[in-house]
């Protein structure tokens, strides 16, 4: 059976009423259409859809349960991916770049008199960057997938994107007491913080890019 445009629209609307996230919607939508394509043209479309939902997903009402189980695993997978990307910068060969950057910052902080406001600016940019990436991700999600549907990973991205700002504000408020307090930690403190911020940004950016890996087949 080859569904027409009206039938496809019906299926999309029908599934969208039960499925919140793009990832689960796409997979279940493709599953149902793949199954329908194997059926003879004479079968009524709506009947076929419900039969497939019953056979493969335990019925229409069970879709929410399937989605929740999938969401949990998808979030876990993304978080694991992020930790792998982050820790990779402390393992060979990336540790050489991390070490190089640390030494460079340490040299600049200890030998070149950098303006505290300049350091603050660089650091502010690096902690705001994940937040900007989170916003860009939302834009490209809609642009690439032609959908404004939520992603199961949205919350994880929001949380990971907000962590640097939260940590920075907490450290400054409760440990140093002033916005520029962290600079008083000296060259070592500055180098550690800027290196961690850079590594975090790279890992976060790579996580964002990994989501858009896609090839086109006709």
């Amino acid at each position: 059976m080859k569904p027409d445009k009206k039938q496809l629209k019906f299926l999309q609307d029908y599934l969208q009423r039960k499925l919140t996230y793009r990832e689960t919607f796409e997979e279940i939508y493709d599953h149902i259409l793949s199954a329908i394509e194997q059926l003879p043209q004479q079968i009524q479309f709506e009947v076929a859809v419900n039969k497939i939902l019953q056979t493969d997903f335990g019925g229409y009402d069970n879709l929410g349960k399937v989605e929740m189980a999938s969401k949990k695993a998808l979030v876990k997978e993304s978080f694991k991916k992020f930790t792998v990307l982050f820790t990779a910068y402390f393992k060979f060969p990336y540790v050489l770049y991390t070490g190089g950057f640390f030494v460079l910052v340490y040299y600049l902080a200890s030998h070149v008199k950098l303006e505290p406001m300049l350091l603050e600016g660089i650091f502010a940019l690096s902690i705001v960057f994940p937040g900007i990436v989170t916003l860009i991700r939302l834009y490209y999600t809609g642009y690439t997938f032609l959908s404004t549907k939520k992603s199961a990973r949205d919350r994880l991205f929001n949380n990971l994107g907000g962590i640097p700002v939260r940590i920075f504000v907490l450290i400054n408020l409760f440990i140093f007491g002033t916005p520029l307090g962290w600079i008083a930690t000296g060259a070592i403190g500055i180098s550690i913080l800027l290196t961690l911020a850079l590594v975090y940004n790279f890992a976060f950016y790579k996580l964002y890019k990994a989501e858009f890996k896609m090839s086109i087949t006709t």
Partner: protein
Amino acid sequence: MYIIIYIFIAMNANPLLKGTLQTIILKLLEDNTEMYGYEITQKVKQASAGEIMLTEGALYPALHKLEAEGFLETFTQVVDNRVRKYYRLTEEGGKEVTSKLKEAQGFIEQLQTILNLKTAAK
């Protein structure tokens, strides 16, 4: 090739199947390189002559769990204007297949021993 599946056809035991779903998925992906969700359900159905059906939507959470554990990786393709997600084994997943199959075989052997003992006791 589908040793685990065939054993469960003979047993026709869906509750037992749930516990081995991950093994079945990993084995199928070892034999077929890359597959998408519907394709997996069809292969299972085909190999078991329709005796085993992956119902209740158990397949996708299981696939995502294997992905989260690092045993599977995914890539997507746009086919007929819709997104299709393919799964394939990672290096770690390849090792896991061997370990899971050994585990399943061990379990079946133990079960057989127990059942044989019971028969002998009668």
